[in-house]
């Protein structure tokens, strides 16, 4: 079975929320109330202290089984989800479906039913098709929560949340911030989730900086200011988010060469000086050093890239414990 955009349909907030407004699935940031985002950030804040315990575990999801359903390869996202689940005392099952049942001709729904029959409680879904997590959320048994760990070019909401969590930790109030997202916006589900999160949190200004060929046609509808010139777009920003150039998703000649891309859109120390002196530099990883970001910037004092990875665990713990709480 293939999942078309049509089957995925629009992305209603009500699929994600219970009647009382609590989080049931976490599929996309788009359409969620601001308070839900703030609740996630506040809850994540309290999970940070779990790392200070000598036993780095809390018993919230004891007896629950979390399944990482990865139809697309990933190391960092799967690992941090796995670690987050384990720190909540859940049991974790990792299924790499790309190399498993679906190649034997089993349909996605059959795969789902089989895993459901193993008494699981939560599916973490990554899939190359946009809308895959929504499709699964519509069809799972009612006690199962679905978390989107990246679907096609649509959304990567936990990454978006950990990015705004990292920004809030360093900068506080979003209403005073200028944030620039630089690079391959077209292929980036991360950028889309970041833009929705930043706008829902009332960020003063969200900019995207990219060549025309790497911007979606309807980019302005997302509520961003578009810049094609890096030197203009970086002026006075508080946060610079660099995106990975997604070479594996590029089917057409969208770029002359990586070398040329770096010349125009690569983040160097020289260019970073255009941003505010206290600006932070972020990257969702894995970074292509020398393609979108210079090594000395990625490892430099303004970089919070590794902090993003640590924060990813706390944010995912928060979301997992919110969707599993008070199910009755």
């Amino acid at each position, binding site marked *: 079975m293939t999942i078309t955009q049509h089957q995925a349909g629009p992305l209603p907030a009500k699929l994600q929320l219970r009647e009382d407004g609590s989080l049931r699935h976490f599929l996309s940031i788009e359409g969620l109330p601001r308070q839900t985002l703030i609740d996630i950030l506040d*809850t994540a804040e*309290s999970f940070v202290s779990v790392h200070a315990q000598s036993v780095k575990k809390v018993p919230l999801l004891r007896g629950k089984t979390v399944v990482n359903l990865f139809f697309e390869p990933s190391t960092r996202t799967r690992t941090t989800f796995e670690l987050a689940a384990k720190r909540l005392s859940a049991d974790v099952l990792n299924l790499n479906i790309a190399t498993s049942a679906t190649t034997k001709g089993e349909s996605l729904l059959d795969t789902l039913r089989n895993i459901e029959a193993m008494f699981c409680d939560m599916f973490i879904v990554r899939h190359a098709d946009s809308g895959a997590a929504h499709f699964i959320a519509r069809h799972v048994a009612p006690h199962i929560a679905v978390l989107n760990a990246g679907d096609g070019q649509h959304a990567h909401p936990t990454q978006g949340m950990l990015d705004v969590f990292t920004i809030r930790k360093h900068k506080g109030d979003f209403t005073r911030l200028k944030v620039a997202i630089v690079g391959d916006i077209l292929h980036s589900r991360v950028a889309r989730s970041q833009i929705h999160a930043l706008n829902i949190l009332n960020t003063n200004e969200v900019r995207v900086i990219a060549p025309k060929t790497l911007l979606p046609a309807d980019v302005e509808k997302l509520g961003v200011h578009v810049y094609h010139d890096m030197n203009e777009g970086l002026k006075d920003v508080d946060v610079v988010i660099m995106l990975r150039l997604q070479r594996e998703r590029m089917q057409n000649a969208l770029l002359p060469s990586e070398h040329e891309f770096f010349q125009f859109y690569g983040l160097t120390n020289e260019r970073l000086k255009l941003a505010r002196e206290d600006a932070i530099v972020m990257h969702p990883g894995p970074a292509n050093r020398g393609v979108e970001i210079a090594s000395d910037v990625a490892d430099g004092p303004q970089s919070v890239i590794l902090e993003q990875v640590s924060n990813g665990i706390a944010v995912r713990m928060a979301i997992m414990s919110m969707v599993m709480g008070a199910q009755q």
Partner: protein
Amino acid sequence: MTESVNELLDKMTRDCQSWFADNGIDNPQIIGIHTGGAWVAEALRKRLGIESPAGTLNITFYRDDYSRIGLHPQVSPSDIPFDIEGQHLLLVDDVLYTGRTIRAALNEIFDYGRPASVTLAVMIERDGRELPVAAQIIGTRLELENNQQVKITGPDPLEYNIETREASV
């Protein structure tokens, strides 16, 4: 209200001092349970002249009713600013009722390390234990009806009131 909070704290301070003396406890560390217990802990710490700051436990992640009522989003993190391993701990809460909070707090404490001992101090003890939990240090004991609860406000001034819930439908 019968006794002022100050009188309760003074009594608890005296009882703590003799408990520590009787049991050979030197240099106890204080941990208060968020939020009311943390206020009482801070007040006791000052009276006992303990210099190192009090720790705060937020037991939300260790509660036994998470699957029924879920998480309260505004949980503030636990903060234990000292190494628990081998320490004598004075665990402080405002009200001892079912005992479930103390069960959760002990579980959390042991995830930070293995203390030498834990002494439980509560400002108010009331009936209704559902677990075998007892406090060594007690400010006062109140006889309350099931529909009554103790409401603590603070930290300054630290006060308590007895509230009566309307009969639920």
